[in-house]
């Protein structure tokens, strides 16, 4: 193996060490981070361990991080990075009352919760903290479990900005 190949392989190997989820699975896995912790979010994310598993220092997780347990079926920009919180939309947007649903396990109490992913609507796309997780995501024809649909419905505008993750109940799936 010549030096060129060695360097390329090394680079690839390093690049592959990190999570391959969502946007972080793309560019993000190599040089890019989410928007919440600007400098070294990749390291931060990997320090958190497996998806949904809490960091010892922060058992609930970080609502500005894609690994936060409630986001198990989200696909979009985290409202918490865009002027909102994980349960409230950014200023001036309107929360869609019609949503898709995920079932996510809270690592603190071990309970499976039904999470409503409400889109925040009426302003252009946030662009910060893109997060795509697809646990239980179904195709579009299985509508209420699909996260590809622009769920800005029942709002005064379909223009998508970001998404919140709201606990609406516990799941019958609970073990």
């Amino acid at each position, binding site marked *: 193996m010549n030096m060129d190949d060695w360097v390329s392989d090394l680079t690839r190997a390093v690049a592959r060490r990190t999570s391959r989820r969502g946007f972080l699975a793309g560019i993000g896995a190599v040089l890019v981070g989410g928007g919440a912790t600007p400098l070294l979010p990749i390291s931060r994310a990997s320090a958190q361990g497996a998806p949904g598993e809490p960091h010892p220092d922060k058992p609930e997780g970080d609502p500005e991080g894609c690994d936060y347990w409630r986001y198990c079926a989200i696909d979009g920009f985290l409202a918490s990075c865009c002027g909102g919180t994980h349960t409230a939309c950014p200023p001036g947007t309107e929360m869609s009352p019609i949503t898709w649903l995920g079932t996510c396990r809270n690592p603190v109490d071990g309970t499976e919760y039904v999470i409503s992913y409400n889109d925040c609507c009426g302003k252009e796309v946030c662009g910060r903290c893109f997060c795509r997780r697809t646990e239980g995501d179904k195709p*579009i024809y299985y509508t209420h479990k699909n996260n590809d649909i622009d769920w800005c419905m029942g709002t005064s505008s379909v223009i998508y900005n970001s998404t919140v993750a709201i606990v609406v109940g516990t799941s019958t799936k609970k073990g």
Partner: protein
Amino acid sequence: MSTAVQDRPFGSILVASLLLLGLLGPVPARAELPVESTGQVVTLPAPAPHWAWVADPLLRRSTLVDLDRGKTLGMVSAGFGPIMPMLAAGRGEVMVAETHYSRGSRGERTDVLTLYDMRTLAPTAEVVLPPKRAISAVPSNHATLTDDERFAVVFNLTPAASISVVDLAERRLAGEIATPGCSLVYAVSGRRIAMLCLDGALLVIALDEGGGEASRKRSAPFFDPQVDPITEKGVRIGDRWLFASFEGYLHEVDLSGEVPAFAEPWSLFDDGQRSDEWRIGGAQHLALHRKSGRLFALMHQGGVDTHKESGSEVWVYDLAGRKLLQRIELESPGLTIMGFPIEVPEDWIWPLSSIASGIVNAIGSAMGGDEIRATQDETPLLAVTSNFGGGIALYDALTGDFLRRIYSGNMTNVGLIAPFGGQAP
């Protein structure tokens, strides 16, 4: 000089201002370069088999690209969501279902079907639609033409499901048909539209002469969406639609007869591949070269529920023989910043050159393939794009050889349409 500009309404203003400002000298007796016309706009030649459209939702357009020359030929700008032109070769028109607001992101919503001339890419007509069209990140099968190009059919979701039917001959809305529980639109012959239903059934709606509902037939469920859903990212060959399931089984739906025929699904993986966790994934993960019967599928290794993950390989199947022919390890579809390609200059010295190349390639590989499409000619190309980059990687669709990367100016790529000839079988 006056000839060149007189054909433009403002030409005389321009020349007058120039003279007034003393900025124009007399044209010399032996003018080195002639004065040129203003107002010229390019008209396209007839579509070629290696033309493709690539949607960029960030720039709110779909870009027409000549894959052979790596040239951007033009674009349609059409508002919010993936812009997926429907190509009506017989009409010489390109159509887009569009959503607009009176104040950009707010105000009054207007949905229209806009018809663009295929040679000028200028809008020639529009039909106002019910303001209900479905918008999603999955670019395909949200609107279609009937095979005879008489009607355009747009899927609506509010979240009540329905379809809007546009009469293209009369340039008017023919009507709206409720399709409760059934989504998306898959055209088949005989002015019929198939839709996928919540319970795994197929709904087939036939249109009458006026675009109304002539008949509606709903099949028994042919798969269980709870157990192993098929993705909505189907491809068509004749009156068959092919769908892959999350678990990697290919479902063939034959709609040539009165009653849909559902072939026994076949596995895209053998046991070893399955235990290695190879899976389908991506936004347009199936493609076909119809003449050769080669089926292309974007594959990656990943766990359950990774059906959106980008592909690291394209697997090529012989559709008739249900047999894996080839695995193509994908090259980077091309890294871009703001639509500009990133490649390492060739005058960089070692080791900088190879390290930078390594990084760029690693980023590109990590991005993976999200959309694939094949052209339908005798020397077909396989095009691979990535959601978060503007590049297009091209492969020989018959040999799998990587050919080159081209760039359209897109910043994101969502939705790839090739060939220009469109979705028709």
